[in-house]
């Protein structure tokens, strides 16, 4: 029994490791490339790091653009949107999943519909709308429209569907109104999905390029991905700079993810009640 168990563990490790190599390879390549002078990118094997390490690409990124400011701008926007979506999406998701009200399915389909038209064609109407609000070239214009999302609402709804209904009934018997149930029981027991939506929203805002490019004119309000695009040339690929840019933008999200995913295991839903 014990022997079989450890064999299973080892094989699981092997399979997972094999897959992980596939997933990580491009990222490793980004790192090694970012540390080479352009001349050496194709003259040396891809994964070989050439010594001395060449940090020119990182110096370019930190020196040629206002990296700190752009990072702060993006961070501010991403955090506000993430917090906003966690609130609005979990609220709406709860209502769509567990409260009966007239027109619920219709309104929900309406939500879904808004996801089905490509951003390419809604970009101009969206921009016109922002002009009418006077929000062009402001962070407000990037943040407020993104405080809710059909995607997040849909995600939350799906997860709240499978929330044990005996818990809800128990709460009702105790005289909890729907808000008390949502706030005191549903949310504290939904850490995994909240962490998931949080990570997804954050990285989506963090990597968004087209919309901030259109909306923001002033350098002082620029976001990181847009700022990095100023380092690239249309005539050739400066591989080290491109890859260094990719590495520095990924790192904060990796760190965020690493900590967020711990939530996936830590929350074991109301273990007292269920055990």
């Amino acid at each position, binding site marked *: 029994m014990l022997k079989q168990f450890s064999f299973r563990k080892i094989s699981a490790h092997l399979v997972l490791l094999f897959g992980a190599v596939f*997933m990580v390879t491009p990222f490793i390549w980004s790192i090694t490339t970012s540390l080479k002078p352009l001349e050496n990118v194709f003259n040396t094997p*891809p994964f070989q790091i050439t010594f001395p390490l060449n940090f020119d690409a990182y110096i370019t990124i930190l020196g040629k653009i206002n990296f700190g400011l752009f990072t702060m701008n993006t961070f501010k926007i991403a955090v506000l949107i993430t917090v906003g979506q966690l609130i*609005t999406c979990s*609220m709406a998701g709860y209502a769509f999943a567990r409260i009966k*009200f007239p027109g619920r399915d219709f309104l929900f389909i309406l939500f879904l*519909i808004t996801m089905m*038209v490509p951003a390419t064609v809604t970009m101009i109407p969206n921009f016109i709308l922002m002009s009418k609000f006077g929000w062009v070239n402001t962070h407000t214009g990037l943040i407020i429209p993104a405080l809710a999302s059909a995607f997040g609402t849909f995600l939350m709804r799906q997860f709240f569907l499978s929330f044990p209904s005996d818990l809800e009934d128990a709460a009702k018997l105790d005289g909890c*109104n729907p808000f008390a149930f949502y706030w005191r029981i549903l949310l504290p027991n939904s850490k995994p999905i909240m962490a998931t939506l949080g990570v997804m929203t954050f990285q989506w805002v963090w990597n968004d390029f087209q919309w901030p490019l259109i909306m923001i004119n002033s350098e002082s309000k620029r976001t990181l991905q847009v700022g990095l695009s100023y380092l690239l040339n249309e005539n050739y690929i400066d591989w080290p700079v491109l890859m260094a840019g990719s590495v520095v933008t990924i790192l904060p999200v990796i760190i965020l*993810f690493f900590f967020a995913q711990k939530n996936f295991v830590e929350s074991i839903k109301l273990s007292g009640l269920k055990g």
Partner: protein
Amino acid sequence: MVSNKLKKKYYWKDAIWGYLFILPSMLLVLTFVFIPVISSFGISLTQWNIFGSPEFLGFANYQKIFSNQLALFTYKNTFIFSFISIPITIFLSLLLSIALNQKIKGISFYRTSYYLPVISASVAVSLVFLWIFDTNYGLLNRTLSIFGIDPIGWLTNPKVALYSVILVSIWRGLGFNMIIFLAAIQDIPRYLYDAANIDGADKKQTFFNITLPLVSPAIFFTFITGIIGSFQSFDLIYSMTQGGPARATYLIGFLIWKEAFDYLHMGYGAALSFILFLIILVFTLIQWFFRKKWVYGEEV
């Protein structure tokens, strides 16, 4: 009689709570997403080059789509893309999430690794894959050559290129679906498994009777968002193949971008989007209609 009255009272009280809960999202989504969607439907009924004033055409743009070979070909490509990539992505990421739900050492490392492709910028991903797919020097062909397989023109052969792009999209989508499924599995109450154990259910039975049903709402979600995402995906195509070779990797999201912003046929581009919209809507409604049959909790 009394119980009936009570039920009804609860119903309306609940309903008000329901409206209150959806109000913030509803206001934001309707204002900032729904209005532009309606407006772009308006645009799809016109001929509009962005700079001039739009000319009302009625449904002429839609008629044009059905006689345009490129548009039809592109829709076909998009279907192939979606029908291959979505089921494979969902299946693999479900397996992955079950594997990554174990208590083994280095689980955080594995999870982060599998999520890396999701957070990488498209441009970087595309360039890395250009290099992996390179016919002469690429990692893939070099590996295959060890087994004596002749080099394959992953991105240069029109018959293969679309499938290479599908491969990249699966690679990128795995981590995304994985964390959704992980959260779903984590959400399953322990006592259900304990109860199953007491009843003497084996692993297979537990999976099919407990795990799968309780993960089904998440599968429904990834299915719908997968369709939407793959029908609209264009940044990979844009930076990897530009639709080539010989238009073999034209996907509808890319064509819409070309028509709307490159050729300045805003109306036609919008019409292409709304045909796409109708297709997605039909799929979604079919799923919606059948969901009560296979999605847990939908009978509520």
